[in-house]
């Protein structure tokens, strides 16, 4: 039974003429526009969901580019003064043999943000097109993106802590670069983008197929 519903015979709430309040969970007839319990707007699907996804996604991409071009850290010591970008920092860590930390930084600051962009774009695109992955896999991707979003801020935390701690006047000082704020914005925008995505859209293709 569960197996059959799992595959194709799934009936969506919308198909059943129902709509659930997103705030309190009260189920209404689809004709209802406002929750009778809590007064929230009732949407069978988030309005303009894909537009919002794409808008936040685009803002994220825009801010992610300077985040990788400009220096993340401004390190000045008595001897020298250096600016390091994210990717430059990774290479520097590799050069000094800190492969583990290099990997962490690389994954947290490069791989995950890029992965999020691709996943969100894929999810948003796959709503209206034929997707290679099953609906369940795509839903799992969405959950993953939502979960992983907060961990992208690890870079920002490192920069913030370093900049706060290492302020030894002329001997050594670390200051955040322009990239830091761009990176933070990119992460925030990506999270907004992911939240704007209505995962119910994933399942709508069944309905559309059923409608056909």
């Amino acid at each position: 039974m569960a197996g059959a519903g799992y595959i194709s015979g799934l009936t969506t709430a919308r198909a059943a003429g129902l709509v659930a309040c997103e705030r309190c969970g009260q189920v209404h007839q689809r004709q209802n526009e406002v929750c009778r319990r809590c007064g929230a707007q009732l949407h069978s699907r988030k309005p303009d969901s894909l537009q919002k996804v794409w808008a936040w996604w685009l803002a994220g991409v825009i801010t992610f580019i300077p985040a990788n071009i400009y220096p993340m850290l401004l390190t000045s010591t008595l001897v020298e003064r250096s600016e390091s970008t994210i990717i430059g920092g990774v290479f520097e860590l590799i050069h000094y043999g800190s492969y583990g930390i290099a990997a962490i930084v690389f994954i947290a600051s490069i791989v995950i943000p890029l992965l999020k962009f691709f996943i969100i774009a894929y999810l948003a695109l796959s709503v209206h097109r034929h997707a290679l992955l099953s609906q369940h896999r795509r839903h799992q991707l969405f959950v993953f993106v939502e979960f992983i979003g907060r961990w992208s801020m690890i870079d920002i935390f490192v920069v913030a802590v370093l900049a706060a701690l290492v302020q030894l006047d002329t001997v050594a000082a670390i200051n955040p670069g322009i990239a830091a704020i761009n990176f933070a914005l990119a992460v925030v925008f990506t999270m907004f983008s992911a939240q704007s995505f209505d995962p119910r859209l994933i399942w709508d293709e069944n309905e559309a197929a059923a409608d056909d």
Partner: protein
Amino acid sequence: MTDNNTPASLDVRRRKSSGFGAVSWIWLVPIIALGVILSATYQTYQDRGVAIEIAFGNGAGISKDTPIRYRDIDIGYVEKITFSSDLENVVATARVDQNIAPFLDEGAQFWVVEPDVSLRGVSGLDTVLAGVYIAGRWDTVAGEARTSFEGLDTAPLLAGNERGVEIVLRTDDGRSIAKGAPLLHKGLQVGFLDEPQLDPLGLGVTVAGFVEAEYADLVTTNTRFWDTSGFSFTVGANGLGLNVDSIASLIEGGIAFDTVVSGGIPVSMSPDPFVFEVYDNETDARESLFENEDQTLLTVGILFDENINGLTVGSGVKYQGVRVGEVSAINAIVVEEGNSRSIKLRTILELSPGRIGIAEGTSEEDSMFILAGFVANGMRARLVTGNILTGSLEVELVDVENTEFAFLDTDQDPFPIIPTTASDVSDVADTAEGVLARINELPIEDLMQGAIDLMASINALAQDDSLQAAPEQLLGVLAEARTFIASEDLQNTPDAIQTTLDQIDLMTAQLTELLTGIEEANVVGNLSTTLSSADDAVKTINSVAGEVPAVLEQIAALTEKANALQLEVLINQATTALSEIEALIASESIAALPDGANETIAQIQGILSEIQTGGAVANLNTTLESANAAAESVAASVEGLPAITARANELLDQLQAAADDLPQITAGIEDLVAKANAVEIDALMAQAEETLESIDMLVRNDATQALPGNVNASLAELEALLSEVRAGGAIENVNATLAAASEAAQALEEAAEGLPALSSQTGQLIANINAVANVYGERGRFTADTNATLRDIQEAADAITSLARAIQRNPSSILTGR
């Protein structure tokens, strides 16, 4: 259950219109983000600085991120280092602050700052640790900005933050000057010198100098510079001189300056650096002040008859003690006078017209005319001694009064000839002879004669008959007075008085009347006057006698002075004293003294005779009244006699006192003569001659004459040594050492970078070994030893790690040793 499945009942409410249509407002977010990013990017692009290229001869330690500094503030960084296309230069491409870029015009200079060690201190030490940097210097006026520059090989004179005035010094010899040498004013450094450079024509050396702003006004067009480097040892008309300036200037050379004459224009007003000559020494520099180089020198000749040995080219020409020129040449010429021809030495002088009072700007002809006027008024040339020891001569122009007329012989070719006058040359021998001649010329005989005359006069006075007779006459007076008093008439008078007592009473009034008459006749008054005259005379003698000790004092003083060898003065004073004494003795009051005394005595006698013979006794005998009156009168008169006697005695005493002083005078004069005799003139002469001979020998001694030469030679050697030190690269060696130290520090740094890895490897090794050791399983001796060894290694590694960390944290500890 069915309730649960039943959806909520229908409750249709209208949805509020969003009012945004199909396109969501959310698209504003990426648009704003894009705008912000783009504007930020543009801003960054704008602010990234202006790219410039600086070409250096060699890299000298510059690298990517080497800062460019202006007034010690970073204004840009090197972005990359490349070679020029022909590999001739290293081209550093850098970005500099946008605000600075407009000032980087043609005048901008760049150079690499490296550690430098010189005698005056160490500079650029910070670059040992922090690496070299590129320093820049440019003016504060924005010009036509450039982006390509030639870097300087060495730091320029001004590093950019000093303010002051730049000058150019010209000298014949750059050997004694090194870059950075101090410019000294009154011994204090007020500036420094740049690298000496060969004159483009090869005629000399020019060196740019810099005077700090606060001292800039000290340098005027009247300022003179001279070389103070090393020692200088001079022997000249001014005597011996040894000058040693500051040690720094000894090694690096140095130029001092001073402005003695006011009125110059400060060179800071000049747009271009003002050019100064550097003189060899301070004396030349100061003397040059009086030479106006623009003014043409007057060239005149002199034909000296005397031996001019000691006069050389360069000898001074003085006028009233001021140097007005110098001897420019000495040569022999043939002079034809009538039929005879003779060879004469012609000395040619160059005179500065301004220094003999001829106004600036006067033409040469006019100057010569004025000079001719001076000569017509008595100006003559003569040789004078410049230095008595070396026997050097100078030419002096003197104004001679009442001289034979002479004129500036302008017919002589090529130079007019100034007439000469007797020379005032005094060499050592001449001077000694002069001393002797002066001693010879002392009028000692006159002195003796005067003393003899004086004593003769005093003797004559003492032996004068009238003076000797005075006491006798006085005795006579007294005797007569006694006789009178003892006369019978007078003795009998009391009896007569007794017999005529009544008449006495009767006659009292008449007697009174008579006495009044006598008083009116002023007999007693006359007597008093006479006596007071005598008294005056005596007093005069007395005062004269009072002066005698003063005379003696003077003579004694003279004697002392005679001992002090001021013979001329002594003679003058002695003569004066003697003439005073003579005048005193010859004075009328002294001459009149015996006469006056005699006269007084005669007067006294006369009075007594008058009293005796004037009929007073007779009248007394004949008329009691008269007798009484006379008796009273005489009694009154007699009362005055003791006073006379006393005064006469006083007179005698005073004369006696005067006579007592005479031996003293005589003794003093004898003393004087003895002392005059005792002046060991012969010995003096002998000593003077001896001294002079010694001096002469000293001067003639080869060693003495060679002394200045030797000293100068030694000094020259020392200077040569110093210039070797300068040229031999001692400082460069130190710099090289520093560079090596810098490299060592770099190597150390690299090594330090490797240390953490080393220590971690060591730790790993230890862990491995530990693991191996554990395999043995036993806590045997081997394991324990191994563990101890490993712990030691671990500790050593830790120590190295901590050292490495310390060095990384605080690199200056390498230098400070902490």
